[in-house]
């Protein structure tokens, strides 16, 4: 993959983001819900409503609002949140690291467990282990992440109180972080006790997000491995006397990776989208939790800002996935 290709993809992101901005702006004006009507209490007068509408620029026509929005957007101004009364970009960037850490832990869990299950079920094909893995996959896929979240709270936070129920950090801990990447920062600083505590808070939400993806990865990889395992070069490897484990991990796995990466990438994007409900249930202060609050309050600038950042994230993820193809498939490097 050439730098020119990469540059082209990044440039293509601009019209994509513009399209997202247009769609989100128009949709938010079509769906029911007036942010000012949501805000005012029962004793407010029509004059109060008109004044607030004017102060938030909602008294102007929708095309005019869109022009103003775009004008601000190109200058990097995402507007001011109606409910949080702060700069949208600052708010979103402040919460994004929490979601990224959650997603990162979830994807790490998904890949590790998914690969392990796929390899185990292929290695012990035809045994009870394969049946067991298939059963686990079916259950993991059948239950959506928010239901997993509730079941995990019951099992590992209440029944066996191994992990905290909510939050990102113990409320009693007085710790000042220089960045919003708490986990990364604690690891870099060598504060492993703190990192363990942060991981404890991440464990259940990450697992709730990861479980469906674990099943997807395990299924796709297992299917790919089984296709590869009947190829002639695998037979040749057997004739040469390579061990089953070596054939599986060194010969079959690299050739079975491509479809898994494709699907993992697509599902990772769904996983990031799934953080909204999971963050809400675990009171995890990420961007998904903030989006829920913004949607409840019809905080139009904040919804627009979060959606644009999500869109940018998805574009970057897609580019990263394409880059990873090139890494695993030599033909794509040329």
């Amino acid at each position, binding site marked *: 993959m050439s730098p020119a290709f990469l540059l082209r993809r990044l440039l293509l992101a601009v019209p994509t983001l513009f399209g997202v901005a247009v769609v989100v702006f128009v949709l938010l004006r079509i769906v029911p819900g007036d942010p000012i*009507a949501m805000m005012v209490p029962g004793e407010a*007068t029509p004059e109060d409503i008109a004044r607030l509408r004017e102060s938030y620029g909602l008294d102007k026509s929708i095309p005019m609002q869109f022009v103003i929005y775009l004008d601000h957007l190109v200058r990097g101004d995402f507007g001011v949140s109606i409910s949080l009364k702060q700069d949208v970009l600052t708010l979103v960037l402040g919460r994004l690291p929490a979601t990224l850490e959650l997603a990162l832990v979830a994807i790490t869990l998904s890949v590790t467990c998914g690969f392990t299950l796929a390899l185990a079920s292929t290695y012990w094909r035809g045994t009870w282990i394969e049946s067991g893995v298939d059963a686990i996959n079916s259950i993991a896929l059948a239950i959506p992440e928010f239901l997993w979240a509730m079941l995990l709270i*019951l099992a590992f936070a209440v029944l066996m109180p191994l992990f905290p129920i909510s939050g990102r950090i113990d409320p009693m801990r007085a710790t000042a972080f220089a960045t919003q990447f708490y986990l990364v920062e604690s690891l870099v600083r060598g504060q492993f006790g703190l990192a363990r505590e942060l991981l404890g808070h991440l464990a259940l939400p990450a697992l709730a997000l990861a479980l469906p993806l674990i099943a997807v990865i395990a299924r796709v990889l297992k299917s790919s491995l089984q296709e590869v395992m009947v190829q002639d070069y695998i037979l040749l490897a057997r004739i040469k006397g390579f061990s089953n484990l070596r054939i599986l991990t060194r010969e079959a796995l690299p050739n079975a990776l491509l479809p898994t990466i494709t699907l993992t990438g697509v599902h990772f994007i769904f996983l990031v989208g799934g953080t909204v409900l999971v963050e809400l249930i675990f009171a995890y202060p990420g961007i998904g939790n903030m989006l829920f609050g913004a949607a409840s309050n019809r905080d139009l600038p904040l919804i627009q800002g979060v959606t644009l950042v999500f869109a940018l994230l998805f574009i970057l993820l897609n580019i990263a996935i394409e880059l990873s193809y090139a890494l695993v498939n030599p033909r794509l490097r040329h």
Partner: protein
Amino acid sequence: MPFDRPNAKRRDILRATASALVLPGLQFLPRDAWAQAGDTLTIAYNVSPPSWDPNTGPSSVSPGLSSIFRSIYDPYVVQKEDLSLAPGVCDQFAWNADKSAITMRVRKGVTWHDGRALTPADVAWNLNRLATLPAPLQSIFASIKNIKTAGDSVSFEVTPWRANMLERLTFLGCYLIPPHYYEKVGKEGFEKAPMGSGPYMIEQFERGSFLRLKAYKGYWGGAPAYDTVVFKFATDAATRIAEIERGSSDLAVDMPWEEFDRLKAKPGLSGVAHPTTDIAMIFLHNIGVMADPNVRKAAVHAIDKKLIVERIQRGYARQIDTLLAPQYKGYDASITTPYDPKLATELLAKSGFSPAKPVEFTVQTTRGYKPKDYETVQAIVEMWRRVGIKANIEVYEIAKHFELRTQHKLAPAAFYNWGNSTADPESSLGSAMFSKSPHTSWKGGEVDAALSALFIEKDEAKRMAGYKSLNKTIADNAYILPLFQFYQPVVYKASVDFKPHLAGFILPQSIGKKR
């Protein structure tokens, strides 16, 4: 009576399944695994502060945030658990003889969290801010004029006259902030590090996750029982239930009644369900068939509110027949609209309707915005069906309700709740029935004329008599359909001494330790 949910979404079904799986399982579990330190009170709470300016923006008018704001900021005047006024930062307060102005004496010895004295000039600065700041309730506070300080007192005129101005100074939007600090750090600096003069100071705030407060040693009202208070923000009821069940929170608010009953019966936990200043009602809009008094009266008399309270609210509500709950000023227990399906049938017959030839209209409702809102409307629709009313349920989001209401475009019937923590009829009946208000559905000259006179009536006895009379007119003519007063469920550890507040506030400074 069918209470099934034919329109339930897949997500609702999954959620219900999850709750059915998870919540009953909790009763077999060991509790108190990670109990908090004795000097810390942890509250599993459902509302997180979006911003910290208590005088403007959506935060300033969110009743749910009053619990938190009252911990950090002082109001001008204290509102006790029964909603009566009591001395606070202003230890004396009164209208003048002709009720044109209010004078308040500022208590000596009150300090801001930085130790600096809270002065009458500070109070005047805050009143001026309240009167001039663009805020959701600016029209009300714009009545504050000609603010003057004299010695330890502050006085201001109330023009135009507002009967409940003193009551208003106890909560929404009316918290004091330090002028010297705000002017020094600015709007953004204040958002980052808010300061007040209340019983607690902010120690750490993790937006959307938790708020940790530390008792302010210099508080004029004395030291609270708990030195540290943690509000854990758990929007989902299942999370709050898990928090109290496990023992990692000392107190949890707002949960389904089934869970409340289960939790309070557990050893080591107590529970209280107390009435709040929030009522359920159905707005009636005099358009189409709803302009017919027989239809409206039949709709009122056909509803068995007692049954709704007992079956749907599990007894945790109180049926009402006027917009005023028993704890409000001007409440008159003699005004009733009894359940009488026979009378409802007769009224409908006068207008040519019967169960065979029903009158038809739309009733709008939210689903899940308030406890059992949709189920309540379903039950009502069934009760109406029996007398000859065919109501078609339209479910919408609360945002849609607000939008339609401000445009006066609600359906002939629309379920809603109305809070009134001032306990003054002007804040409920006045706003909900005055047609010039953006929050009313009824359009009527009779009601408007009566309210216009009551809004400027300065004789309190006459004002209350007027509201009682108007309430009777409204009930007799079925201009609105009051249903019941909501209760608030609170579950707490047996070691916690919790005192309910009629406005539904959870005030850490009022929570003690049981010996």
